[in-house]
């Protein structure tokens, strides 16, 4: 036998390691015709969730009630990831040949690519066949999942941003106990807040571009009459959008704004005066803050973006499984259960009639900050396409906003953003629309 040297062994080990690395790093999975649709039996509903807002116990509670009401059906709750993106990754893996779930959580960002590639079932016919009245769903939330006049998900864990403020700081600055009417008013408040806060505190903190600044910044853009896009046409270079970008930049330049990975802990610790954060943060902030927490509508009237997730059904499972899956979704999101879910997590009720239920009325009476979120709901509006529907839209805009806050020229950054967004639309979306 030939001698096998240390060098040879290490060389081979290295080569295998390199190959393994590339194989692991890459996708390495061939596209298939969309999963085998197999797996669960027709009377077992597999529900893939990331348990948004630590909702696993309440999901289990709802499932138990569903099984009691439908003794011939079982629901298997599957931990499909720690966030919406991980659920989407797992669902993508199942599309390439694995076992498909019956019900899957899809976020405001992830649902569209699945629908566009015909991997989510359009629900309209199923809803009609099951005689489910969709008019009770909050319109803005229901219509978020609309593509070519078909709906591909129903709202489940839906949230909006709220304006959170430290009432103690507001008082020290001599301000009224309310949020700003618009961002111009906030600018007149900012110096007073800064003087009251002192040098070791921050007037306003927002999440950075890697952590959804692009979501809350839509409020400023809309407030100044701009938009990320009109339908599919990017409008970052619109003078009003640029004006909003300059406003954000000036806030940072004048020391009124800081970005962070997550403003919630800093706000809760009392070192931040105000922020725009999800309604989903409300429970934790209200529980842990050692000061009086105030919540208000986002500045401007009707300039609040929707967010969060819905639940959809894979296209490539049997009709019988789809029927059962829809039955479960309807139960999961009915008025009673949306109230149960909302109160446990801080998300929004997705049914109009939910706010009229006695337990919800009592809850809102006890939790006025939660009431702010409910009252803001009719003023919400669906997000602009290039953020929420264009692949990588949020990350792309977030990157640009980070650059703006760091002082780069707003018009130049936004012009490049227009070009990039248009290129992505042309190459990845255009040919598939209406197909």
């Amino acid at each position, binding site marked *: *036998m030939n001698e*096998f*040297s*240390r*060098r040879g*062994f*290490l*060389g081979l*080990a*290295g*080569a*295998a*390691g*390199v*190959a*393994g*690395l*590339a*194989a*692991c*790093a*890459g*996708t*390495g*999975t*061939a*596209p*298939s*015709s*969309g999963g085998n649709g197999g797996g669960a039996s027709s009377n077992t509903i597999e529900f893939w969730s990331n348990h948004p807002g630590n909702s696993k116990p309440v999901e289990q509670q709802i499932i138990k009630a569903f099984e009691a009401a439908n003794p011939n059906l079982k629901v298997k709750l599957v931990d499909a990831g720690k966030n919406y*993106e991980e659920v989407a*990754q797992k669902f*993508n893996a199942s*599309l390439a040949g694995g076992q498909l779930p019956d019900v899957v959580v899809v976020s405001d960002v992830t649902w569209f*690519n*699945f629908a*566009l*590639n015909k*991997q989510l079932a359009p629900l309209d016919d199923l809803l009609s066949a099951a005689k489910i009245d969709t008019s009770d769903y909050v319109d803005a939330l229901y219509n978020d999942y609309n593509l070519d006049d078909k709906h591909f998900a129903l709202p489940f864990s839906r949230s909006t941003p709220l304006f959170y403020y430290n009432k103690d700081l507001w008082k020290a600055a001599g301000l009224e106990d309310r949020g700003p009417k618009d961002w111009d008013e906030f600018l007149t408040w900012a110096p007073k807040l800064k003087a009251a806060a002192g040098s070791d505190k*921050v007037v306003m903190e927002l999440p*950075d*571009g*890697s*952590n959804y600044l692009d979501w809350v910044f839509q409020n400023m853009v809309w407030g100044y009459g701009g938009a990320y896009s009109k339908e599919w046409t990017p409008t970052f270079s619109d003078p009003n959008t640029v004006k909003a970008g300059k406003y954000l930049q000036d806030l940072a330049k004048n020391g009124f704004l800081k*970005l*962070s*990975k997550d403003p919630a802990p*800093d706000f809760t*610790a009392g070192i931040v005066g105000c922020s725009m954060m999800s309604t989903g943060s409300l429970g934790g902030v209200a529980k842990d803050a050692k000061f009086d927490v105030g919540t208000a509508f986002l500045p401007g009237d009707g300039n609040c973006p929707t967010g969060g997730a819905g639940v959809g059904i894979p296209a490539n499972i049997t009709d019988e499984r789809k029927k059962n899956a829809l039955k479960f979704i309807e139960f999961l999101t009915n008025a009673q259960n949306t109230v149960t879910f909302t109160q446990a997590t801080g998300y929004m009720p997705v049914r109009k009639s939910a706010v009229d239920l006695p337990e919800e009325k009592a809850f809102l009476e006890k939790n006025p900050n939660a009431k702010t979120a409910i009252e803001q709901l009719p003023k919400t509006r669906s997000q602009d396409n290039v953020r929420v529907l264009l*692949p*990588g839209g949020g*990350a*792309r805009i*977030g*990157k*640009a906003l*980070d*650059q703006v806050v*760091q002082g780069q020229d707003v018009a130049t950054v936004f012009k490049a953003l227009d070009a990039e967004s248009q290129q992505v639309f042309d190459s*990845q979306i255009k040919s598939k629309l209406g197909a």
Partner: protein
Amino acid sequence: MQSSVTDSRRDTPVSAGPPEQVGPAPRRSSGKAWEWTLAALLLLPNLVLLVVFTYRPLLDNIRLSFTDWNISSPVANPVGLANYVEWFGRDDTRVVVRNTLVFTVATVGISMALGLGLALLLDQKLKGRNLVRSVVFAPFVISGAAVGIAFQFVFDPQFGLVRDLLARVGASSPDFYQQPGWALFMVTVTYIWKNLGYTFVIYLAALQGRRADLDEAAEIDGASAWTRFRRVLMPQLRPTTFFLSITVLLSSVQVFDIINVMTRGGPQGNGTATLVYQVYQETFVNQRAGYGATVATIMFVILLAVTVVQVRFMDRGQKS
């Protein structure tokens, strides 16, 4: 590992000891056939695993790199070299390659140097050295995600440990999460802290297997500590250094968990994005699995080239 290899160091000055053996007596052909059969039987299970889980996905990945596959789509259309042309032409490629290079060189170089230093120190007969050895090695067995979460607090510019330490000397903390240079520094330090135990323990094992008589002989001959380190110890550690340079390089290039937890590739979009992170970003965030496969293939070629150069370098070192 040392016992599994033969004598590629035989002709180096430091290991020149007993005269070369003549080797085993010639065997009959049936004996050779049996050796080959045995080798095949022993290798087959691992070969099967390698083919199924490494080489097949690798080839599949290369094939996909020539397509426009959207990860949710059942269809992947061939696009020729378009993905490769795009990667070489894009502005962010330069940033990602630079980040990967800086991160890899820093983590490989610093963790090997520190690992060797600590191994030399804790190879001495010191009181409590076993405890210190355990402490140094412990972070290596903690998951990268957990380390990333813990170090977020260490580097937090509002209330982190680093801020507190800097405040004691009157300095302010950099904003590690908003400035790309500092963000890369932060993930590099975190990665080195987590993985230092690996280089340390491998070097320590090598030091404990070295020939002390050579060092003593050199000392008697009047060689200085530095000369003994350079001329006597390091040549004995050469195979270990080579092994570590490959394994640490590969694990550094693979880093994903710490970056994803601490910065999600930001700030400013790709401030800490490395090639592996770009594969993730393109495949799962931008849904361009074909393009992600292209980046993975390019990374494979680069790493293969680096490994070949390392092997050649080692080979030349042996011969000289």
